[in-house]
């Protein structure tokens, strides 16, 4: 692969053509927070946390879907970006009902970690307090829409890795919801294979094992990344 040179946060780097900005940063110990990105899944640029500044462009670009180009100068830790990352985090919390103290994923939650990372002390936006459902119709797992941040990792892992296409997205804007099949209770789904990959990749306490109790839910998104890597090596 031909190499090109880029400058990220004053570091001069030699990278392969076709690499995303996020991959370059992760490989060079430059920390960019993400929610919807997971190695092995197709990136969609949904969470907007990984936005970076590219010199010569007035727009902020999502680093997970932006490929590096020769001689680019990229900034990842400016005050503007830090301000926006904190704002986005606050909006995650304000949209639905994230109550860590009673959450199944308390202490094992990527959203909680993100709050600490960006230094969120309070939420400056009014909470929507949406009335979301908890779907416990499935025999093994539970879907709690109150904790969902619409990263769509579950949707992508179900369609692209498992190939079952159980999950989909309904409506738009703040009314957007994750659905199973024709918006049926998860337990009535005809496509779910009970594999549990969606539960493993979920960054928050939205998807969990039925036998989990408060704070006990452990997630293993890495398992899916490894699985995809093994499959690619085989082919």
């Amino acid at each position, binding site marked *: 692969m031909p190499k090109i040179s880029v400058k990220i946060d004053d570091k001069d780097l030699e990278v392969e053509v076709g690499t995303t900005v996020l991959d370059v940063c992760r490989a060079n110990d430059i920390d960019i927070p993400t929610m919807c990105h997971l190695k092995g899944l197709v990136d969609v640029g949904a969470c907007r946390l990984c936005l970076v500044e590219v010199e010569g462009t007035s727009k902020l670009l999502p680093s997970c879907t932006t490929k590096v180009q020769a001689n680019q100068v990229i900034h990842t830790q400016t005050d503007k970006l830090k301000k926006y990352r904190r704002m986005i985090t606050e909006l995650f919390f304000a949209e639905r009902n994230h109550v860590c103290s009673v959450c199944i994923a308390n202490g094992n939650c990527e959203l909680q970690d993100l709050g600490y990372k960006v230094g969120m002390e309070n939420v400056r936006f009014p909470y929507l307090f949406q009335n979301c459902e908890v779907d416990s119709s499935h025999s093994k797992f539970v879907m709690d829409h109150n904790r969902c941040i619409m990263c769509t990792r579950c949707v992508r892992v179900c*369609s692209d890795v498992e190939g079952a*296409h159980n999950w*989909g997205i*309904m409506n738009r804007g703040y009314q957007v919801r994750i*659905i199973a*099949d*024709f*918006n049926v209770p998860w337990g009535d789904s*005809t*496509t779910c294979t009970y594999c549990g990959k969606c539960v493993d990749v979920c960054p928050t306490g939205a998807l969990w094992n039925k036998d989990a109790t408060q704070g006990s839910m452990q997630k293993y998104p890495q398992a899916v990344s490894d699985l995809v890597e093994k499959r690619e090596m085989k082919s």
Partner: protein
Amino acid sequence: MLKTKKSFLDVELPKSDPRVKLIAAKIKKENYRQDALIEILHTAQNAYGYLPMNVLAFITRELKVPPSRVYSTVTFYHFFSLKSKGDHTCLVCTGTACYVKGAQALLDEIENKFHIKPGQVTPDNQLGVQTARCIGACGLAPAVVVDDEVKAKVTAAQINNIITTKTGVGA
């Protein structure tokens, strides 16, 4: 005996129904291509006026697309509707110009006679009332669209007569 899960996709549509024939023909014409989903949904919406769940199940099964993708598509686009909009429709423009010229009085008058608010349908499914934010006919304000026909400068005293004359509802 082996028990299999009853699927909501196991629905039979009456084969003699011309609307079903129309959709089946469209699917065949599109060669069962999954990416023709939106075109096929358009045909179904035009045939029925909305998208009944059993029709969605039929399309899902014929195209072999995931049910969640069909439902996602239908709920994403404003054009598609899962609920009947009524056999006859009355759309009152509530854009700025029409609103200033008294669109709310028209809606109140309709509610007085037919007891339906915007987005609702009469219990016999005869009439549905909708609103739109500007239909691009501000010079005709307040504008009303009754069964695809635009009526200009409608007053509160006229509105129910216009609906009845055009659709026969409430005669």
